[in-house]
């Protein structure tokens, strides 16, 4: 029976990225995927006639351009097109547009407040400063602050130098930024409720916290630090849906000689003498390799796919207490035509952007209160896009695909599993909210896939359906992610590595954890580091 150099468990974008780099380095790599399709949560699914749903992740910005370029993803078929604009529909019939043109953006904000329109510039500069700070660390392995190894000391010193470089007042601003709530952060710039509501959404997406919870300003950053062709904070669509990202990385992986097996669920990562020996599949088949890399989240990796006896008790407890909370759901809808939104002027460019239906900070926060009580938000925060307005490949001509990211949606309803009926009620809540602003929307629905965290966990394998493989709170960031002492992609047993979004720098279709883990593996194997370095700025 064949022994591989390395087995990567899970063909999501991080697993594939990791596998691609290992294969590129010349290793004999097998990537295993439990589903009969690849991509994990980075997929395009054909669930209804000729429609292709980006049924988990739906927009692209965070994917590291260094990796995009390095793995030659464009030649492997990936094309990311930026999309512009967005709208918040207001209960009073008005709306707040987010226009890509800075001047028009100014005018729109000035419609509500000239001071806010001006403050946006300062807000952008301040936020951009934080983005620049964090971007430097995305393709680096976090230092272990308890270690005295030269590498860790060097990385710590680098972190300190980057921090000090900001200058005194901006260091204080940074400390505050990392610890405060998105609501309070926005309060320091803006006075208009709907403007704050519009901007606060990025502070909670994928996070089981409310806009007033300390720490959510950082989450905002997590949604701003990406870019499309250097435009920081811009988001785009992957042509053909998000599955194109996974397909392109997989194609790169295979071009380096890597082997992919789908329909190959891992039952257990096998260990002998504190060292991994390979994996056992659900079919009972065993595959041997001295290196196993898990792209699954840490809970799934250690609690479901390993023998408890192979793990140290303290480690096991910490994994159990790792916070990976289901806080969002998803509706994927096939539409017979483009819904109309009467509040928007005819021909408005905003129709091509994302849409939201919560116009106040109070409604944002109340949505969270429902989640704390163990139920889905009755007035949820919905991030709705219709990628087919610019991507002709995802639905037949004249027809459309709509993606609704919905928050908050708990992993369990009042402490027990979801029923199908509750799932449908959840879907209906979202459809009703959108219908308030689009009277013809309901009649255009041809098919609707409603996904609560239960469906997301069952299909994509994300524990509790958490899109980031773990909360992005301070206790789970940088050298704390996923678990203090294990933030350098190495697992607790020899030959075991972790490359999923549970690791630094966290979730989103970024591919950085996959790449960073590859670097550590290659280091351990004393092979040349072939992973890309940050493009850098200055």
């Amino acid at each position, binding site marked *: 029976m064949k022994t591989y150099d390395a087995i990567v468990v899970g063909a999501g974008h991080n697993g594939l990225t990791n596998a691609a780099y290992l294969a590129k380095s010349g290793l004999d790599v097998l990537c295993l995927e439990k589903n009969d399709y690849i991509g994990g949560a980075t997929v395009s699914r054909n669930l209804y006639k000729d429609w292709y749903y980006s049924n988990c992740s739906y927009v692209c910005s965070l994917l590291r351009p260094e990796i995009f370029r390095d793995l030659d993803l464009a030649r492997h078929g990936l094309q990311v097109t930026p999309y512009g604009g967005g709208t918040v529909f207001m209960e009073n019939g008005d709306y707040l547009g987010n226009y890509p043109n800075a001047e028009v953006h100014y005018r729109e904000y000035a419609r509500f407040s000239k001071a806010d329109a001006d403050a946006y510039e300062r807000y952008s500069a301040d936020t951009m400063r934080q983005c620049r700070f964090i971007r430097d660390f995305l393709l680096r392995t976090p230092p272990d602050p308890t270690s005295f190894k030269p590498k860790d000391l060097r990385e710590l010193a680098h972190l300190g130098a980057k921090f000090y470089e900001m200058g005194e007042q901006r*260091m204080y601003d940074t400390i505050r930024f990392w610890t405060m709530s998105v609501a309070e952060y926005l309060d320091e710039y803006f006075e208009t409720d709907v403007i704050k509501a519009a901007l606060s959404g990025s502070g909670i997406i994928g996070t089981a916290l409310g806009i007033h919870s300390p*720490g959510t300003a950082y989450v905002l950053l997590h949604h701003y630090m990406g870019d499309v062709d250097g435009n920081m904070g811009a988001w785009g669509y992957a042509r053909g849906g998000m599955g194109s990202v996974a397909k392109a990385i997989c194609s790169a992986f295979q071009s380096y000689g890597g082997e992919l097996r789908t329909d190959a669920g891992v039952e257990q990562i096998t260990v002998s003498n504190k060292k991994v020996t390979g994996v056992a599949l659900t079919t009972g088949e065993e595959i041997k390799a001295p290196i196993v890399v898990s792209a699954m989240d840490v809970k799934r990796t250690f609690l479901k796919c390993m023998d408890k006896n192979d793990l140290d008790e303290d480690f096991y407890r910490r994994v159990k207490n790792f916070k990976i909370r289901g806080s969002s759901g998803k509706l994927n809808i096939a539409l017979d035509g483009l819904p109309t939104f009467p509040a928007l002027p005819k021909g408005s460019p905003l129709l091509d952007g994302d849409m939201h239906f919560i116009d106040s900070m109070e409604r944002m926060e109340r949505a969270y209160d429902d989640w704390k009580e163990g139920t889905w938000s009755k007035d949820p925060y919905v991030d709705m896009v219709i990628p087919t307005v610019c991507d002709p490949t995802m639905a037949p001509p004249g027809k459309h695909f709509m993606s609704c990211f919905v928050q908050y949606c708990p992993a369990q309803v009042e402490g027990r599993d979801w029923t199908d009926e509750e799932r449908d009620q959840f879907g209906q809540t979202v459809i009703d909210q959108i219908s308030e602003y689009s009277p013809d929307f309901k009649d255009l629905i041809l098919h609707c896939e409603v996904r609560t965290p239960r469906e997301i966990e069952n299909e994509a394998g994300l524990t509790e359906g958490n899109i980031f493989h773990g909360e992005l709170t301070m206790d789970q960031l940088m050298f704390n992610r996923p678990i*203090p002492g294990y933030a350098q992609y190495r697992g607790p047993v020899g030959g075991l590595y972790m490359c999923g979004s549970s690791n630094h720098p966290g979730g989103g279709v970024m591919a950085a954890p996959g790449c960073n883990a590859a670097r550590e593996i290659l280091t351990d194997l004393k092979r040349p580091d072939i992973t890309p370095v940050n493009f850098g700025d200055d």
Partner: protein
Amino acid sequence: MSERYDAIVVGAGHNGLICASLLGKAGRKVLVLEANEQVGGAAVTREFASGYSVSSCAHLLYQLQPQVQKDLGLKPDLAADGMSTVVLSPEGNHVRLNEKQVSGVSEEDAAEYQHFYKRMTRFADLLRTYLNKMPPRLAKNASKSDMLTLAQLGFDIRRLGKVEMQEFLRLIGMNIRDEAVERFESGLLRGAISLDATLGTHLGPRSPNTILTYLYRLAGAHGKISQPKGGMSAVTEALAHSARNNGAVIRTGMPVKRIVIENGRVAGVKTEGGETFSSSLVVSNADPKTTIMNLVKARNVETQFTHRIHHIRSKGNAAKLHLALDGLPAIDGIEKREFGDRFLIAPDDNYVERAFNHAKYGETSIKPVFEITFPSFRDSGLAPAGKHVMSAIVQYVPYELREGWSDKSRAAFQELAIDTLAEYMPDLPDRITATELLTPVDIEEQFHISGGHWHHGELTLDQFLFTRPVGGAAQYAMPLDGLYLCGAGAHPGGGVSGAAGRNAARAILKREAVV
């Protein structure tokens, strides 16, 4: 020609008095001006009904810094020392806590609590070192002592050892609820810990940062709670005495109208009564917002500084409820001898979180949380013979009530609070002979604390250490020559701890030579 002092302290709160006393001890000629007739600021005992007295705001001592006591030779006379805490259960299955031990919970919880307490006090000790130091400046050109303090902080964290250091770095930004739920099955225990972590803040147990507030609470006496004899005024009177002994002049009933500024620096103060006092050094015990916006005025400082001061979050949520009782109420499962303890109404973490939800929207909690004491039980001087007073901190009572604070809204909340208490003490309503409710608005008005916030500003990581009260002004000296802060709004924060007053005095003595 007005009288000239080396330093004028605005406000005779406990921090102002400590600062004045230490400046006096160093030979400075100090004047303390207090708006109220009584010294003590928010640490005072007042008669709220004929024959009934109570500590009006702070009512328990648990944070008074040993260094302060040592420096001033202060030994408060205690009516109770090491009070236990009883977490009331609606069913009478109360949980009892003293610092180290918990009873009324499962053996696992009791054992786990010991681990928890041990770790928390260890971290609190680490914190305490820095509560009693001036925060270092972060800057490439920072002073040697700033760099030294930073290095020491780094070293102290490393010295915890690998595992504890990891835990410290993980926990410091975390919420108390997750930690409580991970460790304990008892709702009452989780509720008590949640309450202790959120008392006096605008945070719920699920809000990240509440581990910090919990540690802050423990950083004085490891959670040991005591009650000064004669109420809080006993402590502040003793401080005033110490200040006078050190040569400070204290004048009460002298509200300061503004800080006089000449040629871009502090020159003295002017009182509401029109008197002026000269000094090139003014130390404000008032909160930062009051100090800068009202006493100094924005035009005398710079824009970003004003903006930062303006945005300090300092809207209080803690109200005080004082009841004059014709006898002790009956509490199911509580014996009479236990009435000297501290009682909490916080049956579980979700209850506390739900109580907080309302505060976010400018509403009072429908089911508020309480910290209750019967001070007269241990200190008979506070009530007529056979009668008692109850002193309770009630949360959440937002400073900015959506419907606005009025007699009507105040009465409505008081009724709700008493109804909630009656669920645990059914005969309480019949025993009440007089009441006093101090909402944050009342506290603001009567004790001159903007927002009625007992920390003079939310105690969160973004308003802590380097950035308290605001970044760039955390070293007690304000960006106006001659102006210092010495109150709870400065590092490290509020509670009857005295660290701010002591640190401020030390900063002043280091920086300001005798003129």
